[in-house]
């Protein structure tokens, strides 16, 4: 954190406010996910109408996806630390690794949905299934946008020389990416583990 370009006080405040505003957006996103979780729990009560999710999911498969997301969080942290040491290329390499792990997660999820629909657990079979797709796919969509953002960040690191601006964007991306893993903790607990119990 030692070689930051000096800048005036007004700029300083604006950057802090930007990140705080983004943090507030993330918190409102938590509330969005909270309502999706509540919907899921209500519609998936024991004895709900329609086929049980339990018969369609594979826990080892979910565990692999979980570890991909967790590993991508760690590689993101490495990218951020490389950025603070001003090793931009190394930082971009770690971002690429993060992107790969995140992409693996999304591909696994799309593949899972494809098989679920094929085997008779489409979003149209019951309210419980709709709630499942609503919750899990909203998370997946967030991850997909996170992937897009990681690509943009990699390009921006080469394009922009202003490290203060880059740092701000990096921190916001970090909050977003970590938030997705935090939501996933509750997705695998509520949807998959509780569902398979």
């Amino acid at each position, binding site marked *: *954190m*030692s070689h*930051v370009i*000096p800048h005036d006080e007004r*700029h*300083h*405040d604006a*950057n*802090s406010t930007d*990140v*705080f505003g983004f*943090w*507030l957006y993330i*918190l409102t996103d*938590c*509330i969005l996910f*909270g*309502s999706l*979780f*509540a*919907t899921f*729990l*209500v519609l998936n*009560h024991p004895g709900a109408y329609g086929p049980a999710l339990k018969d369609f999911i594979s*826990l*080892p498969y979910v*565990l692999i996806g*979980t*570890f991909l997301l*967790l590993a991508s*969080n*760690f590689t993101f*942290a*490495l990218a*951020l*630390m490389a950025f*603070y040491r001003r090793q931009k290329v190394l930082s971009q390499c770690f971002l690429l690794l993060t992107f790969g792990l995140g992409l693996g997660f999304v591909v696994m999820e799309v593949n899972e949905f494809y098989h679920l629909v094929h085997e008779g657990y489409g979003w149209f079979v019951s309210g419980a299934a709709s709630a499942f797709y609503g919750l899990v796919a909203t998370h997946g969509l967030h991850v997909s946008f996170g992937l897009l953002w990681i690509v943009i960040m990699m390009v921006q690191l080469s394009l922009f020389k202003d490290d*203060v601006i880059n*740092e*701000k964007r990096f*921190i916001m991306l*970090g*909050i977003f990416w*970590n*938030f997705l*893993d*935090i939501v996933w*903790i*509750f997705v*695998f*607990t509520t949807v998959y*583990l*509780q569902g*398979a*119990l």
Partner: protein
Amino acid sequence: MTAHHQQTPDYGTGEKKLSVYLFGTVLCILLTLIPFYLVMKPVLTRSSTLILLYGFAIAQFFTQVLCFLRLNTKTPQAKMNSMSFLFTLVILFVVIGGSLWIMWNLNYRMM
């Protein structure tokens, strides 16, 4: 750190340390593996497994918040972040807890 705070904007996200990230990652791996094991190889009753599942989820939640998001109360901005975070937890409790409470009651009364 204090000297640099004059230069770096205060984002309240804490210091970036490899040791903290490593510790957080290892802890998260453990807190993920144990609940999966409990469900895949059932050793406990259903209700106690369910309580443990949520116990591990909440433990991992706080591990990630503290080790990755680095939520703290060291700078004024960090305090703002933590307070808004706590406020969101209250809202989430009302939204999720309240919904489940109401729906459970409706279900109970209409049976």
